[in-house]
């Protein structure tokens, strides 16, 4: 099992969510985050007090997926979140040791 973590532009959330549903991912967790990579921030000016704001708002999507589904999930996220401009984001894939469904106690693939 793998944990797929994707940082994407906020307005891409709906598209990514639909793409994931289409290939059978049943649940995701979404967090509002901020960060920067190569995309520069902007400058804000309040009455002469200038602030350089490095952090840009992004959305983090986390999905626990079965190994068999992994490649399609990554491909779905990539294609739906891409705009071609700097700041599109990144996808991280990490190993998932265990998954438990709280309601039933199911573990492993049955819990995905």
């Amino acid at each position, binding site marked *: 099992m793998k944990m797929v973590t994707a940082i994407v532009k906020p307005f891409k959330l709906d598209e990514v969510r639909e793409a994931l549903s289409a290939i059978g991912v049943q649940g995701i967790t979404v967090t509002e985050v901020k960060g920067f990579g190569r995309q520069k921030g902007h400058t*804000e*000016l*309040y*009455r*002469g*007090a200038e*602030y350089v*704001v490095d952090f840009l708002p992004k959305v983090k999507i986390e999905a626990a997926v079965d190994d068999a589904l992994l490649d399609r999930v990554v491909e779905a996220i990539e294609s739906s979140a891409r705009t071609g401009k700097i700041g599109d984001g990144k996808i991280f894939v990490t190993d998932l040791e265990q998954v438990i469904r709280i309601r039933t106690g199911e573990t492993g693939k049955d819990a995905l």
Partner: protein
Amino acid sequence: MNMKKFLQMALLWAAVLVGGWAHAAESPSITSPGTKPAAGAAAALSQSILLAQASTDTAASASADAASVPSAAPAAAPVAGATTAAAPEAAAVPMVHKGDVAWMMTATMLVVFMAVPGVALFYGGLVRSKNMLSVLMQVMVVFSLITVLWVVYGYSLAFGGEGLIIAGLDKMFLAGVTKSSLADTFTADVKIPEYLFIAFQATFAGITCALIVGSFAERMKFSGVLLFSVIWFTLCYLPIAHMVWGAGGYLLGKGALDFAGGTVVHINAGVAGLVGAYMLGKRIGYGKEAMAPHNLALTMVGAAMLWVGWFGFNAGSNLEANDGATLAFINTLVATAAAVLAWCVAEGLMKGKASMLGAASGAVAGLVAITPACGSVGPMGAIVIGALSGVVCLWGVTGLKRMLGADDSLDVFGIHGLGGILGALLTGVFTAPGLGGTGGDSFSIASQLFVQAEGVVITIVWSAVVALIAFKIVDITVGMRVSEEDEREGLDIAYHGETAYNK
């Protein structure tokens, strides 16, 4: 501050108040419900010089009180004070008009609206969310505190009699004032109820002290703010208000023009705030950490409330609902609009974008600058004053602020102080009849400018000195600055046990 110190101070104030009340109770008040001793020279001369016409009925009043220099043109609020009796036989029966009373009650309410919620929201939106409630509290509680002190002893000291610098305590606890008591307006036989004048002026005192808190936002102790306000109100606001607007007041006698309080309110507050900012020191992280306003939408709401309320502040300073009030009214409208535009254009040229904070600040700057001028300049002059204030105050919150090097958190000096100074001086220029003002034939820009400058300098020096003393007292007693921990956590939690925004 610990319990012992608090009790000591409370006892001291209680003793002062009881002593004063006993004094007031002993000496019977002179005020009669009938003819209020005329404002005398103030009303008479302002009529004759400002409106360039001699009112026959004011001649009698003028003869009664020869305090002021005849050629001076005091355009200040009239004196509802204990000047010696005018010549009632020459004046007709004093009239109280319902329209005037209704307008002045409205104007008073509008100034309350300016303070709470106007100033409160304007300032509140500019601070970080962890300090929002502390700003709202300081504005609301200071305003309330000063209002009470005003009716206890403030009114008496500012308007309760004759004096070069201050009046007296004859009207402490409003002794002798009843609902039939009358106060003067600028028209000889037109009066308004004295309670109404007291209430109107109370809001001025309250908002002046509430304005100052902007300079110490985010780092001053609540008890310190209150103690400072009481001391500064007593030793600075009252004498300046009396000198500019009270019977026999030094600046009134010199002919200084300050229709609605450019010096009394704005320069006064601005300078006190700046001194406080210096003495408090900069906020932790100033210049390094981001301290962006947490809600500029609220700041704009506050600024808009200030604009609307200011019609009461300026046009209400006319004390009657007549043509003088409408002049102040239209000036308040156009000067502010011009200032908004000027700030936006200047900021756009300087920084590439016109910001909402800039537009809101421009509005306030224009309002401040037109305050002393609104009763005596023409609308075109008002536009110029507004436009200049937009540009000058933009410099005030950027270049000048850097030069001064103090952390005046919410730019009380940059906008109110500098705007007030500019407005006070330009009043001397644009009152000239040739520039559309109401000045008489003998009006001289040069000599009026000199008088205006004198008023400005006196206010600056007095306010600075008293603020220094007041802060020192606060420093020694309850302490000025919050602890570093409290400053980091936020004053809302540390001093009020609340957060503004809970999920």
